[in-house]
């Protein structure tokens, strides 16, 4: 038997009712609402009219490659495409497997609404963006192909992942770091590939590379320092506090300049051979200190009884931390940590001030080009949208993860 059709309608009616109450509850409310809404609509309308009419997007169209990868040598760019293909395939695979193995205690729809929305958005971007950027046909097809690959892998893993050997599924968390290392080789060269100097990396490539490097490496640093700060060994505790307070006591830009000058003396030779790697390490240590505070808050929030129970069962301290305390502490710290990661991603724009050609640095060189003088609005709007997309993806992913890890809330 079909459920009564009235239910959704009545929900919508009550929704509309609540909206009417909120906006037009009293004459004064109505007046304020009308004024505000008309202002917002007028502003949005002007923006859209400018974006579609007056704005000259040629500045973006002509510099797409520059914004994407900087001055990465053209004949080596196939390496980046290969990396993109691998990342898309593995992302799709992981995504599908996450859905194929829902949490132990519940079953639900294979693809929740958010997933469908995300795939729709991806499809729209793959179809529209290359056209809007006036990329040639080969490039348009490449983007569509990569997106199709991601969606196809997700679909395959989602529908058949459960019948794959469990060993294969457990490999996924191992493959990601391996892919990261392989990606570094692809980008930088080595293993027979010609070297591409970091000074030739730029644009979105450099921004994402710096951010992901700092995020990945700051995570273990943050966990170790947070544990150190709560340790009973005085030397470990004090050095952790010293590290955190030193980093938090100075603005990032100061640390970046400082790093350019002194990191060469501090780290073993070869670790920070040039400006890009020096900046990467500064970002990593910077993010690590703030992350340590987030993790510490998470550790404090886990009741002491959890450690006692784990220890009373015979788990050693490292086992108890790894299996019982940290999983809970990190879940609690996750929102704060992701907030930290999002601001780190945005902080990479400071790299332009020390002369690196990240997204903002690239944008400034483009705007300095006499051919594109006065096109600041177009460039900055594009940058803002790009950053917004990256941060939104981080935020959405973290919220999905949070829901998945939370044993008391309903599934995503």
């Amino acid at each position, binding site marked *: 038997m079909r459920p009564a059709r009235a239910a959704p309608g009545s929900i919508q009616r009550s929704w509309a009712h609540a909206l009417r109450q909120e906006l037009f509850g009293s004459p004064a409310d109505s007046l304020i609402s009308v004024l505000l809404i008309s202002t917002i609509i007028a502003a949005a309308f002007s923006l859209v009219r400018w974006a579609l009419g007056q704005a000259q997007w040629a500045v973006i169209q002509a510099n797409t490659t520059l914004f994407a990868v900087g001055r990465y040598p053209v004949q080596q760019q196939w390496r980046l495409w290969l990396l993109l293909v691998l990342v898309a395939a593995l992302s799709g695979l992981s995504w599908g497997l996450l859905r194929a193995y829902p949490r132990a*205690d519940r079953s639900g729809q294979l693809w929740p609404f958010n997933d469908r929305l995300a795939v729709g958005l991806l499809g729209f971007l793959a179809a529209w963006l290359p056209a809007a950027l006036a990329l040639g046909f080969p490039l348009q097809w490449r983007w569509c192909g990569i997106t199709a690959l991601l969606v196809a892998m997700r679909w395959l893993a989602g529908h058949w992942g459960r019948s794959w050997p469990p060993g294969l599924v457990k490999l996924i968390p191992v493959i990601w770091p391996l892919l990261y290392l392989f990606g570094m080789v692809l980008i930088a060269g080595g293993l027979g590939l010609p070297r591409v100097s970091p000074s030739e990396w730029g644009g979105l490539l450099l921004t994402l590379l710096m951010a992901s490097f700092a995020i990945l490496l700051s995570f273990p640093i943050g966990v170790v320092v947070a544990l150190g700060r709560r340790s009973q060994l005085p030397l470990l505790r004090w050095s952790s506090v010293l590290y955190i307070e030193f980093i938090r006591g100075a603005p990032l830009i100061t640390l970046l300049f400082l790093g350019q000058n002194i990191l060469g003396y501090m780290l073993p030779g070869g670790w920070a051979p040039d400006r890009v790697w020096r900046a990467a390490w500064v970002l990593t240590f910077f993010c690590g200190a703030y992350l340590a505070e987030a993790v510490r808050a998470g550790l404090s929030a886990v009741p002491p009884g*959890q450690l*006692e129970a784990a220890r*009373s*069962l*015979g*788990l050693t301290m490292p086992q108890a931390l790894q*299996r019982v305390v940290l999983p809970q502490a990190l879940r609690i710290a996750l929102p704060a940590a992701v907030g930290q990661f999002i601001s780190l991603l945005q902080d990479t724009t400071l790299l332009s001030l020390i002369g690196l050609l990240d997204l903002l640095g690239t944008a400034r060189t483009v705007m300095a080009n006499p051919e594109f003088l006065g096109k600041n609005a177009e460039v900055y709007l594009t940058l803002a949208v790009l950053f917004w997309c990256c941060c939104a993806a981080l935020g959405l992913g973290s919220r999905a993860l949070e829901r998945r890890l939370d*044993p008391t809330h309903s599934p995503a």
Partner: protein
Amino acid sequence: MTATSQLMIEARGVQKWYPNGFHALRGVDLCVSKGEVVVIMGPSGSGKSTFIRTFNALEEFQEGSISVDGIALSNDLRNIDAIRCDTGMVFQQFNLFPHLTVLENLTLAPVVVRKRRRGDVEAQAMALLERVGIAEQARKYPGQLSGGQQQRVAIARSLCMEPRILLFDEPTSALDPEMVGEVLEVMRDLAADGMTMVVVTHEMGFAREVAHRVVLMSEGQIVEEAPPTVFFTNPRHERSRQFLAQIL
């Protein structure tokens, strides 16, 4: 209970000071034989929880000696880990791991500590959950269970390590009254099976029926130690009479 039976816990002259100077245990002696059920009672702050927490080294002590199942408690971490493997503990607040399912709560320690195969442990864990009457909740998370169910899971989790001694630290104090019975039922069942148990509790009925010995602690010392029939009807010490008068 016979004089010849093997000593599972032997505590001699245990003294403990908290870092703030509070003298929590003032020379406590207690011996528990294999298969014996000892109930420790006493007003709050009398040191009874602190005392049983010294048995598995959750609390340190400064003077005296404790040996558990023939292993002397020392600062040697290997000794402590060995004792903890053989000594299960059930807490007032259950302390189940909220991020793991009921089944995973049971299998974690045997797999990680004893290095047993997950499949074997899961079969054993399901049998234990069956025994405490919650096998159908195995795939749920602790937060989805009632307090009584959680405490029964906690008991099963301890049993899954196949301990030789079980310590209970006020196992029913945090439960709603209507759930106390189901937990005590499981504990009775264990005692009948010959498990060595030390139980800190205020449950008179349980002490009367199940305990072989009742110990009354007050201000960090043992005041009276007697079989329940004697303890509840004819205590020797004035302090015991006061205590019984207050709780009966």
